[in-house]
């Protein structure tokens, strides 16, 4: 077990070094005269020179690479071109909003994804099964921001049940606060819920075909008991791992949903930074989110190894 954790840690360190190098490289090869783009109209050459100096744009490629690289281990991501503040400060303000949204989305994924998958598997080829299969296929093929707009159209515009966009204003009570979360979290969760449902279905069907289930049936156990007591436990393992890894998809998708719902998280900040061509902000945000993703994957893998002895005793390669 210790060996497995050490090997996984070693891999993670290598990946993080690679990510750091890649982001630094991207940061130092941005083409075009950034200073001229950032400066107000009619700026003098002296002002441009000041801007260049402030953001190290006057230094040669390798020096810039080194300066940026040096800051990353201490999470010094430089200053944002537009906000004129350290990128890390802005991330500290907005990350909690994104994490809260992601947690609500994960809850939706777990409840609806697993439930739909199980129902679909136990009543195979029924109306319900066909409905789940078709709707999950369609969801997977939809641009996520369109899902968000459709939810707004139906739930806010037509039915008026939920607030159309934005985060709960300060001082909002818990229950009315929740209403702000439902739509963005549902949009964020939609695609992953579809994947989880499909995965749960096939995983449970696979387990139901195994010998020990036949044995349990032969012993005269009821269908319900065989399904829920024996099959579901093992049928859940791949799904649980997927849900962990899926966090990365959520982080990516969050960018798109946060824009649609005007949510004050990192995704929204990232979008603004993209529009403003604010490279330190974009790459800094991407760096922190990727770091988060890598750590969560590490935790999922290690906890998975605790759950499934096959992983830590030999098949460890499969999860890497």
């Amino acid at each position, binding site marked *: 077990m210790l060996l497995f954790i050490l090997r996984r840690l070693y*891999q993670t360190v*290598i*990946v993080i070094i*690679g*990510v750091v190098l*890649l*982001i630094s490289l*991207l940061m130092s*090869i*941005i*083409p*075009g005269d950034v200073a001229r783009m950032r400066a107000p109209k009619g700026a003098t050459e002296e002002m441009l020179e000041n801007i260049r100096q402030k953001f190290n744009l006057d230094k040669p490629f390798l020096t810039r690479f080194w300066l940026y690289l040096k800051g990353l281990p201490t999470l010094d991501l430089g200053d944002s071109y537009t906000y004129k503040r350290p990128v890390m400060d802005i991330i500290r303000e907005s990350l909690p909003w994104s994490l809260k949204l992601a947690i609500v989305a994960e809850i939706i994924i777990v409840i609806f994804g697993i439930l739909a998958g199980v129902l679909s598997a136990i009543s195979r080829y029924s109306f319900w099964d066909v409905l789940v299969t078709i709707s999950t*296929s*369609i969801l*997977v*093929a*939809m*641009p*996520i*921001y*369109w899902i968000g*707009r459709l939810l*707004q*159209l139906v739930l806010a*515009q037509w039915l008026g049940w939920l607030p159309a966009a934005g985060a709960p204003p300060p001082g909002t009570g818990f229950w009315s606060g929740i209403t702000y979360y439902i739509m963005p979290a549902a949009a964020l969760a939609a695609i992953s819920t579809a*994947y989880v449902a*499909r*995965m749960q*279905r*096939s995983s449970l*069907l*696979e387990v139901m075909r195994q010998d020990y289930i036949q044995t349990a049936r032969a012993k005269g156990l009821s269908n319900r008991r065989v399904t829920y007591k024996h099959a579901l436990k093992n049928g859940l393992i791949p799904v649980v791992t997927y849900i962990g890894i899926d966090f*990365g*998809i959520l*982080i*990516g*998708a969050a*960018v*798109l949903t946060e*824009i*649609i719902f005007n949510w004050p998280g990192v995704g929204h900040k*990232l*979008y603004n930074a*993209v*529009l403003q*061509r604010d*490279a330190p902000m*974009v*790459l800094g945000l*991407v760096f922190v*989110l*990727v770091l988060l*993703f*890598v750590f969560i994957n590490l935790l999922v893998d290690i906890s998975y190894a605790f759950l499934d002895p096959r992983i830590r005793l030999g098949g460890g390669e499969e999860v*890497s």
Partner: protein
Amino acid sequence: MPDRRDPDDLRVGKEQPELHGPEIEEFEIELEKGRVHGRTALWSDVWHRLYHNKMAMVGLAIIILLFLVAIFAPLLANHDPLYSPLYNPDVGAAEKAESVKQTPSWQNWLGTDQLGRDIYSRLVYGSRVSVEVGIVAVLISLLIGLFFGALAGYFGGWGDSVIMRSADVFFAFPTVLGAIAIMTVLGPGLINVFIAIGVLGWATIARIFRGSILSVKENEYTEAARAMGGSHARIIWKHIMPNSIQPIIVYATMGVGGAILAEAWLAFLGLGQQLPLPSWGNMLTEYLDFYTTDPWMMFIPGLAIVISVLAFILLGDGLRDALDPRMKGSI
């Protein structure tokens, strides 16, 4: 003289009768026939299974239609996709006001957008972007992925470690974030969309291909080819590739759908095909703004994207089942 054998019996691993002199020569001829027959039989089996998979055939039909629309866009479009009456000095003010956001009619089959442009013609021309992004991005991924996957799987050693650790680094980037990072550096535009999506896809293909190479590398026919002095490139291309390409075909098919979807969200982030040129992602992004007043508009590019992506998923699913019937039903 050996009996006529079923090609299956000629596969390595089956016990063969001992042969002498001219018999060997005849056997080799048979073997060659069997090999050729075996390969065509494999693909005709695959086609047979695919043909009987209704959903996959629906997917294939939609894909063919999509390609035809993209190729013949100038013939199919009945308006200039860029023409907006709002910018035409000859059009009167009243006429301008009337020309925008018109619901479908005989003149404008799918209505007009906020600038009075014909939505049907924009949709038809927009299909070209989707097809281009899908094909070019996947080809770039394939080119890089197959090359490095083959290098890693076939030669192993430290090269393998370096390539696979680099692949891990790419896996650490959720696609949206990776694409945003690359596009910020390269700048917006269609060519850069090809590059960003293409570059991000290589790692998965390399990993799949490396895995399948490892599983066929030690087979006896590969060893035989090596013993006969075949070059590395020849062995990879002639012997390993045909036996390990199947999962790649499935992945690439689905990848085209993924790339079409990626074009849509890159357009949403303002990083894709630049306006006013039409792409489905651009159209959807523009029409989203009118969801309160004219919600029908966003359904046109939205459905076009969903149907095309779905078609590639269905065909990919079908191909996977057809190529490897054991995988049937798994996702």
